[in-house]
Structures are given as structure tokens and as C-alpha cells.
């Protein structure tokens, strides 16, 4: 009977697959980390596990909003999380973070002064910077012959259908605000409206809104020019040397990912030891060398390779950094940003 056969087949397949996958478990003390994927060098994590005789559980989220929704609903049981700058501010306001005990993190002294006491967390009470970068313009010299130095250049009709924008309302509207010489975190409705009207004239040039795959789109030359994070630009330039990067004269947005400990974490002390371990100069160098992001650890400089230290897209100049601004919390005006963003992306009003 053929009908019987299918039952057997499906059973066989599912059971076979289940057997393929093993099982594991241990009773050691566990550090539960919740972060972006591939955000640490696996060897450095293993070294920490060995030195402290603990197990690291490393789970991943895909964006700050997912992280917030989950932590807010009480989900997790995580000891260490890595929110971005504005999300640290939000989490502090919502009382979701636990103050750090700096006594357990003496290596905090190694952090570059420029990244200490950021506006979103004065005194570093709740967070310590992990990595940071800037939103600027990446462009492909093969197609873009003009000199690029301003956000205005994205509006050039020669790039019709070839401009890439980050898929993020604050980044893109913030960019248009910067272009108009305003703060990227404006709460003035007239200013925001003007910026959005300006962006509507940019739409014919836009190939796609994308945050995650903008690298592939630049490498494959689908897009010629776009708003790109400095760290991503370094990735792109390694695969496609025609791609150049600048921080526009009007200035760009600076961002950071940070260490923080959620309220109610079971292993706060272990998490702090982990942060300290990661800030050891040699560990630090090894880690950032492997993940390819900027290292805020001044003491690690000498342990980095020449190639890393010379990468202008990873190590931005103080002059470039001086032209940048953090994305501040806009409070309830976020609703206005969101509605305008929906208008922009749906092409409706």
C-alpha cells in the first residue's frame, strides 16, 4: 500500500535527521552572552572559558529593537548584552540595565578617552564601548568620477537608481538633517518635515534601502554610492579596491556598540570579569584583528598588525571624528520619524 510507505519514509527521514544531531550539556558556571553574531573571536572566548573554568553561552540577536523587545518583556536570563549607543540610553531610561562595578574592570583605564563618558551614558555608569564607527559615503570610483565631499552628492541625477541608503529611519532622516546643517536628532517638526521633503526628491536615485547587505551591493557594484558605516566600508574596500570612503563635510553620525549588563543578571561579576579580560591589550588586539572592527583600546595598538593600524576606515582621524554627532533620543517625536519613514518607503502619503 503506497499510502503506508510515506509514513515510513517521513519517519525515517525525520528520525535520521534527529540522530544526526548530537546532544550536549555541562554543569559548569555559565556566562550567558547576548550579542550580534560573530562579534567575538572564537579563540579569545575559548581562552576565557579555560582561564576561569566556565562555559560561555553565546546567543545572537539581529538588531537593537529585537534586543529591547526581548529584554523588556523579561526574556533572557542573559548576563551580558551589547546594545548600540542610542539603545543604551533607552535601556537606562527604562531601568533595564544594572550599574557596572568598575572595581572588577580595572582595564577600563585602557579605553580611549574619546570614547569615555559618551553623551548617552555620562560617567560610563552602565556601559563600556566595545566598538564604534561613523556613517559616511562609500562610492565606487569606476562609476563616480566627480569628487565626493558632501551628502548633496547623493542627489546627483547621474546616479539615478544607483544610490544605496541605510534601512533605518533615524540614520537616513538624520543624514538629510545634517545636509541641511541641523542636528541629526532634531525634534523640531518643521525641520524634520523639510528634511523628509528633501529626501523625497532623492527617491528616484535610490536603488534600495539596506543595512545588512549593503556590503554585497557595493562589492558587486549594484550600487555606485551610498550611506555606509565606516567598518563596513573597510570590508567592502578589501573585496573591491575601487571603493573609496569619506566623511562628508556636513558631518556624519557616530555610533557604537557597547557592553552592558541587564538588570537581574545572575552572573554580574563573571560578566565584569569577562569585560576586563576582553580589555587586556593582547586579547583585545587578537579579538578586533579577527572581527575587523575598530578597537577603542589604546594599549592594544602595539599588538595590532600594521595592516590593521593603517586601515583608514577602521581608524578614523580625530579630524573626521570631530565632525560627527551621536544619535540622541528624540522621545515621542520618534512617532513622527516613523510615520515619515513609512511614507518614504511606501511611496504613499
Amino acid at each position: 500500500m503506497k499510502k503506508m510507505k510515506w509514513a515510513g519514509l517521513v519517519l525515517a527521514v525525520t528520525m535520521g535527521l534527529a540522530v544526526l544531531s548530537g546532544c550536549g550539556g555541562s554543569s559548569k558556571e555559565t556566562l550567558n552572552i547576548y550579542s550580534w553574531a560573530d562579534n567575538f573571536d572564537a579563540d579569545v572566548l575559548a581562552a576565557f572559558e579555560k582561564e576561569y573554568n566556565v562555559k560561555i553561552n553565546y546567543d545572537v540577536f539581529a538588531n537593537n529593537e529585537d534586543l529591547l523587545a526581548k529584554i523588556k518583556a523579561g526574556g533572557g536570563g542573559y548576563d551580558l548584552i551589547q546594545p548600540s549607543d542610542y539603545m543604551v540610553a533607552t535601556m537606562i531610561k527604562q531601568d533595564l540595565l544594572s550599574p557596572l562595578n568598575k572595581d572588577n574592570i580595572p582595564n577600563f583605564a585602557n579605553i580611549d578617552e574619546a570614547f569615555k563618558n559618551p553623551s548617552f551614558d555620562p560617567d560610563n555608569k552602565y556601559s563600556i564601548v566595545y566598538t564604534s564607527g561613523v556613517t559616511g559615503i562609500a562610492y565606487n570610483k569606476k562609476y563616480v568620477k566627480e569628487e565626493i565631499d558632501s551628502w548633496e552628492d547623493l542627489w546627483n541625477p547621474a546616479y539615478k537608481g544607483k544610490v544605496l541608503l541605510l534601512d533605518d529611519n533615524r540614520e537616513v532622516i538624520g543624514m538629510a538633517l545634517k545636509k541641511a546643517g541641523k542636528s541629526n536628532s532634531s525634534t523640531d517638526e518643521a525641520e524634520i518635515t523639510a528634511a523628509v521633503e528633501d529626501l523625497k526628491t532623492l527617491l528616484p536615485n535610490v536603488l534600495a534601502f539596506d543595512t545588512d547587505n549593503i556590503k554585497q551591493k557595493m562589492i558587486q557594484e549594484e550600487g555606485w554610492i551610498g550611506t555606509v558605516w565606516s567598518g563596513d566600508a573597510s570590508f567592502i574596500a578589501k573585496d573591491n579596491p575601487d571603493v573609496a570612503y569619506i566623511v562628508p563635510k556636513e558631518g556624519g553620525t557616530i555610533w557604537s556598540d557597547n557592553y552592558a549588563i541587564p538588570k537581574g543578571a545572575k552572573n554580574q561579576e563573571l560578566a565584569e570579569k569577562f569585560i576586563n579580560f576582553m580589555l587586556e591589550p593582547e586579547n583585545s588586539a587578537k579579538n578586533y584583528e579577527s572581527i575587523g572592527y575598530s578597537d577603542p583600546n589604546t594599549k592594544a595598538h602595539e599588538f595590532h598588525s600594521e595592516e590593521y593600524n593603517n586601515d583608514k576606515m577602521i581608524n578614523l582621524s580625530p579630524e573626521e571624528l570631530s565632525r560627527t554627532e551621536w544619535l540622541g533620543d528624540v522621545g515621542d517625536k520618534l512617532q513622527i520619524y516613523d510615520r515619515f519613514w513609512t511614507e518614504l518607503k511606501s511611496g504613499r502619503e
Partner: protein
Amino acid sequence: MKSKSHPLLGIHSLLVMIFIYVPIAIIIVYSFNSSRLAADWSGFTFEWYTSLFSNRHVMEALSNTLTVGVVSTLVSTLLGTMAALSMRKVSRRMKAGMGGLLYLPIIIPDIIMGLSLLVLFTQFHIPLGKLTIIIAHITFCISYVFVIITTRLSGMGGQLEEAAQDLGANGWQIFRHVTLPQIMPGIISGALIAFTMSLDDFMVSFFVSGPNSTTLPIYIYGQVKRGISPEINALCTILILVSITLIFLAQFVLNRGKGQKKQSVLPF
């Protein structure tokens, strides 16, 4: 049974199959590409296959995904089949109500299901982990099994069952020898969809997962920011090949069994 299908039908089917498999072929080809960013073809390598097996995160995620998939498919297939069969015997009003309820999990946006279950679990202090993911998956998988089996039942008259009853068969016998064989294709198709849905679910799993219960979709979505590692392509290639081989083997074994005695292959 001899197929009297029109040749055009065969061509159409072949084209749809090609449509389904072209992206799969691309995935397989790129699992041997030495470029990390899945950009251009930059040379042949086995690197991703070797590094895949030493990647603890992927292996754990795979194990979690399959455990969740198998358990939630089995439970939801059982519950969905029971529900579909019982629906035949209830009043019209009850039918409409239950029908609507059973369609709900398919209609509800994933994020609503994920967040609301997360709130529920934390309120009742149920620790987040594989168990909560399984519960969530069963909840939406039941619906898929239910609608497919209902499809089957709606085209099925009750005559055979009545005849069996007239011949003195008891309830269990009727179920085992008459009803079950008739709805088996529905059960299989329903279970296949349920398993597929479970394997692919990201949103719901994301919210109801806890430490140490990362599933493959959660892992893969997390990797998007850095560029999904070609190790995942390698993993997908292996999964496809293993699945097809298992089906081939199962069919081989079943065919041998058939040669000896037709019904001895499976207990029912």
C-alpha cells in the same frame, strides 16, 4: 495505475521543478566558493565543510532546530489529526467557531504570536528554552496539519466507515483499517508542512528562546549583519543530500519488504 497525463503537463511540471531547484543549485555551488561574502566566484574550496564541523554554534543550533522540529511535528500532527477527525461530528455552529480558531495561528502575524507568548511565559515563570520554542511551534503547526487533513476529509464520504460498522467492526478497528489509511496522504502532507514551518520559523522562536536554545534560523538571521557565512551554504547542501539519501534508502528498504509480504512493512 497508468498515467494518461498530457505531455504538456509533464513539461510544465519539469519547468516548475527547475524553478524550485535553480536557487538550490546556486546554494550548492556557492558552498564551494572561496569568497566569504558570497560575492564573485573566486575559486573552489572545501574550507566551509571542514570549518562547519568545528563550528560549535552551528552544530548546537542545528541540533536544537531538529529537536524542536521533530517533537513539534509529531505532537502537532497528532493533535491536528484528532481535531480534524472530531470536527466531522460536531454541530455546525461549533464547526464554524473551531474552524476560525484553528485558522488563527496561521493568520496571526508572527511577531504578535512571539511577543504575546513571551509575555505569557514570563508571567508564569516558565523558563525560556527549547521547551517554550516547542510549545510555540506546536501552536502554529497544529493549524497547518488541521487544514490539510480537513481538505482530505471533505472529499471523503462516510460510506466505507458505515459499511465497516455494518460488518461489525468496532470503533478502533474502523479507525485503524478504514479511516487512517484513507487520510494518510493528508497526515503526511500536513506533517511535511508542519516540519517545514518549524524548521523555517525565525520570529516566534526568537522571542520565546532563552540561553542555549538558539535555533538555526535565529543564528542565520543574526549573521546577516556580518554577511552569512558560506558554512551555512555547506550545511544546507549536506541537509539536502542527507534528506534525499534517506528517502532513497527508505524507499529501497520498503521495496524489498514489499517483495516478501505486502502489509508487513508497517504495523497498520
